[in-house]
């Protein structure tokens, strides 16, 4: 595997369900040894996309090449080379962890030992436990273990940490990082920006089945052109005439409203805050809950789509 080699390429992918276009001309490239994150809100087309790449759904149009192979002609070969963790698979409750892995090993000519992957995901103590007795995090680690059995070149992970508590989430992330460190490539979908920022080398932000931004997390955040984000709630509510005035402040590059809240994209934080306070003094404005933070993927996403990644 040479660095820079493209291990997964999708061109012009389209998938329709009746009148709904779930994936609309999507283009993706996964480079060997890197992790590509598909980030987007529920319904953006992430799962449909990853299921087409995994060979579970046939695209209505477009081309997919996995390790240079085409699903339509080499499905069995591709399946032997990839590891997949689906969103919300339930394994058989009455099989043990070991028995589950033993079953999956039988599908691969060249497989790691069950105990080797059990150790990798840290389930040694649950080796003989029935799947039905595992916690959500342990089940997710078992799912990862089954995906790692065949020494996959590419790991497909569909929302690997959804529904897990922070500690369980970190354990899953550590296993994925170890896989990457061993030279594997990862395709990941998520709607957690921390997950994307921690794991992904490259991002594709999806909305309505299209990529609306791509690049490294840093590069994507930099498209906002802001050093920081300043948020506050004016007492008595935001008034439209403030917006124009806020935009004239030195160091402010964009203004948007989220309900009562005003959010400023700021290129020079200190100048902008000073200008904001001066404005408040002139207009006898009082501010509540003033905060500044470094821009995140969430800010990029909201500025691109007007929506949050998670509607919670």
């Amino acid at each position, binding site marked *: 595997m040479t660095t820079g080699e493209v291990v997964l390429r999708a061109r012009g992918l389209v998938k329709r369900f009746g009148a709904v276009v779930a994936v609309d001309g999507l283009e993706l490239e996964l480079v060997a040894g890197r992790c590509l994150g598909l980030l987007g809100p529920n319904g953006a087309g992430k799962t449909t996309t990853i299921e087409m790449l*995994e*060979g*579970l759904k046939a695209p209505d149009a477009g081309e997919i090449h996995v390790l240079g192979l085409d699903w339509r002609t080499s499905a*069995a070969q591709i*399946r*032997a080379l*990839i590891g*997949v963790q*689906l969103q*919300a*698979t*339930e*394994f*058989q409750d*009455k*099989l043990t962890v070991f*028995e589950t892995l*033993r*079953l*999956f*090993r*039988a*599908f*691969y*000519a060249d497989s790691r030992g069950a105990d080797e992957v059990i150790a990798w995901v840290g389930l040694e103590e649950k080796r003989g436990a029935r799947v039905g007795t595992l916690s959500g995090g342990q089940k997710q680690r078992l799912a990862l273990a*089954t995906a790692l059995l*065949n020494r996959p070149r590419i790991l497909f992970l569909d929302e690997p940490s959804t529904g897990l508590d922070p500690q369980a989430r970190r354990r899953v992330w550590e296993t994925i990082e170890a896989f990457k460190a061993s030279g594997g490539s990862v395709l990941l979908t998520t709607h957690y920006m921390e997950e994307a920022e921690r794991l992904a080398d490259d991002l594709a932000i999806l909305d309505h089945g299209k990529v609306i931004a791509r690049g490294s997390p840093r590069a994507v955040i930099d498209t906002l052109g802001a050093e920081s984000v300043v948020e506050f709630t004016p007492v008595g509510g935001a008034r439209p005439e403030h917006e124009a005035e806020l935009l004239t402040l030195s160091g402010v590059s964009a203004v948007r409203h989220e309900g009562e809240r005003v959010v400023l994209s700021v290129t020079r934080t200190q100048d902008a805050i000073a200008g904001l306070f001066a404005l408040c003094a002139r207009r006898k404005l009082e501010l509540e809950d003033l905060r500044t933070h470094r821009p995140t993927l969430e800010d990029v996403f909201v500025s691109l789509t007007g929506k949050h990644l998670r509607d919670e």
Partner: protein
Amino acid sequence: MSRGRELYELTRVRVLLFLREPEALFWVFVFPLVLAGVLGFAFRSKGIEPARVGLLEGPGADELARALASDEHVELVRFVARAEAEKKLARAALDVLLEPQADGVPQLAYDAHRPEGENARVRVLRALDLAQGRAAAPVTLAPVEETGSRYIDFLFPGLLGMNLMGTGMWGIGFAIADVRRRKFLKRLLVTPMRRSSFFLSFILARAVFLVLELAVLGSFGAWILGVPLRGSVAAFALVSLLGAGAFAGIGILTAARARTIEAVSGLMNVVMMPMWLGSGVFFSYERFPVALQPLLKLLPLTALNDALRGVCLDGSALVELTAPLAILLTWGVLSFALALRIFRWE
């Protein structure tokens, strides 16, 4: 990735999962035994019930008692108090009441509407005739000693057939609907597993259970209930195998599209209900209207029950069972082929 190992592991898992389902084990192995035991006991042949004859004290009572003692099926109870004896007769604790009279002609009181009363009357009169030296009309008696004509002998092959149907349908249908609902099926599909191995594992696991089922139920039927097997063991095994195969196919077909356990169990009941009633499990389907019978005979459970009863009770060879076996084979092949075509993989 060899076919053999993949198939072995898939089948092994199916067998393990079934053995770990206590309810399934109960319905397959315990329930039919309990049902056979209870029904066999309730409808057992009871032998000849003795005629309960009351005899009041009076002149010549001892001679009457001696005369009645010649019939081993007469149970004699002597009374001093008439009121007590009449009360027992009224409550059917006695079948007849014999009372000696001063004129030497005893009086026999009985309820002419009860078969037991009529039977006791005939026995008492014959005993008294014999005691007085009057011979019965000359008839040569030829008692028939046929085992295998009890209700349990009819019932047991039917229960076995019903069990082969239930195990195949529930065992396979539920398991398929369950792996689909869990998306476990989808997870299997992203491995290089061959789809045919997935189906074959259900069939093979079914075959493993068939051996257990036949061993447990068959030995219970033969040794505890005394149900005969007049045909060959090989014929019995082949009929069972064809029956199990037909219902495995129908089970897969029933679960071919269903997304939920509820959907599949509803469908199964719709499929099995007509056969529970119409396929002659508990009573002969010949009791249904004649016009209906050709249709009933086409049902797979009817064919299986006919073939099982043929082998067990009539000692039929396989060639004599061509019609029911052909019906079973057709059901099996058609349902399996259709299931493969319409199966929902996602």
